[in-house]
C-alpha cells in the first residue's frame, strides 16, 4: 500500500479523505498548510500528494511548483483538489506539473479511482 500526503486546511475534509484512504490500507500523512505540505513532502517522500489549491502560508500551486523544482521531490505524483467554480485552476495545475485533479465536492469512488490510477502509473 502507498504512503499518501494529504494537504488541506479544512479539518473535516482531512478527516473524510483520511478515513477513506486509510480504510483502503494506505498510510496517510497530514499537512494543514502549504508550508507544512512542502516540508513533509521533502522529509517523508510520499508516493502521492493530494494537494488542495486554497491553503494558508503557501497555496497549492506554489507548493506544486516547489515540489517539481526540487530534484528529490519532482517525481512524486500530485493530484490537485480544487473547488467547484475554480476549474480554471485545473489548467494552471497541469501546466505546473500536476498529474490529475479532483473537483470538490468529492465523489469518493472517483477520488479513489484517480488515486489508484496515478499510483498504478508509478
Amino acid at each position, binding site marked *: 500500500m502507498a504512503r499518501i500526503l494529504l494537504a488541506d486546511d479544512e479539518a473535516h475534509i482531512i478527516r473524510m479523505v483520511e478515513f477513506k484512504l486509510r480504510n483502503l490500507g494506505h498510510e496517510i500523512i497530514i499537512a494543514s498548510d502549504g508550508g507544512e505540505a512542502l516540508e513533509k513532502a521533502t522529509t517523508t517522500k510520499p508516493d502521492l500528494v493530494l494537494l488542495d489549491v486554497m491553503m494558508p502560508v503557501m497555496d497549492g500551486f506554489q507548493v506544486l511548483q516547489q515540489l517539481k523544482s526540487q530534484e528529490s521531490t519532482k517525481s512524486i505524483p500530485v493530484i490537485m483538489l480544487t473547488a467547484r467554480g475554480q476549474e480554471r485552476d485545473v489548467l494552471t495545475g497541469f501546466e505546473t506539473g500536476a498529474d490529475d485533479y479532483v473537483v470538490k465536492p468529492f465523489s*469518493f469512488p472517483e477520488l479513489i479511482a484517480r488515486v489508484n490510477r496515478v499510483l498504478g502509473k508509478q
Partner: protein
Amino acid sequence: MLIVIYAIVILQSLILLALLALIVRRIFLRFWIKYIEARKNYFTPMVLGLLDEPNNITSLSQKLRPFDRGLIEVLMLQQATEIKGQERTIMTTAFEKLGYVDSEKKNLESRWWWRRHDAAIKLGIMLSEEAVPTLIKAVNDPSEEVRLAAVRALGQTRYPQSITALFQVMEEREDWTADRVLEILVGLGDTHKEPVLSRLTLPMNPRVKVLLVQLCGLMKWSEAVPVLLPLLNDTDAEMRMSAARSVGSIGDATTAEHLTPILQDEQWEVRAQVAESLGLLQNDIAVEPLANFLSDDNWWVRYNAAKSLYQLGQDGISELQELRSSESKVVSGIAAQALAEGELGL
C-alpha cells in the same frame, strides 16, 4: 470614614467574585471543549462509516442522546457538503432516518427567524424530497433572510416540484426574489432547461419573462432560439433588448438575418444591443447593415456597430478602413476609434 471602608471592602469582594467567576468559567469551558472533542472523535468514524455501510444508521440512532443529536447533525452536514453522487444520496437517507429532516422542518416553523433561517440552510444541504413542501411554504416567510435561504435550498434540492415552485416565486413576488431565483437557476445548469423553454411560450408576468429570456442567453441554450426570435418584435422594448442580447450570447450565426432588421428599432437601447449581438454572431451578412448604422443618431449605437464590424474580421475591418475616410466626421471618427481600439486589443 466607616462608609469609605465599607465601600472598599464591597468593591474588593465584587472584584474577587468576578475573578472567581472568570476562573470557573474558564475551567468549565476547557472541560466542555474537551468533552465535545471527545464526543466528536467518538462519533466521527460512525458518521464517516455511513458512506461505506449505510446500515450503520441503526447503531448510530441507538446511541443518540439529545446533546449528541446536535453534534452528529453538524458532522453529517459537514460531510454532506463535501461529497456528491451516490454517497450524497446515502447521506440524505441518513438525515431522513435519523429524524433530522423532520426536526429541521419543525424548526422552519419556529417563531424565531434565525431558527427558521438555519433550518432552511440545513434542509438545503440535506436534499430531502420530504422537505420540499415546507421549503415552498417558507418562500413566503416574513423574514427576507429566511425567504432567501428557502429559495436557495429549493434550488439545491433540484426536484421538479422545487423548480416549479421557483418559477411561481418569480411570478408572484415583486421584490428582489425574482432576480435571486434567476441567479439560482443559472447555478443549477441544464436541469431546468425544458421547463424554462416551455414556460416562455405561455403568457406570464413580463418582468419574469425578461428574466427567463436572459437566462436562456446566460446558459447559451441553442434550443431557445425558436422561442427567442419572435420576441425580437415584442411590444416591450426591454423584452426586445433581452432577446437580442440572448440571441447574441447563444451565438448561432444563422440568426444574424433575424437580427439585422431590428437595427431599425425605434429605441436606441435596442439598436445598440442588436449592433453588439451582431458582432458576436460572426456572420458576414451583418457587415453592410452595421456599416449603415455608423451614422446613427445615438453614440452607443454607432460605437457598438463599429466595434462589431471589427469583431467580424477582415470584411468588417476593410469596411471600417474605408469608412475612416468618410466625408461625415461622425462616421469617420467612430470608424477610426474602433480600428484603434481593435488594434490595441480593447
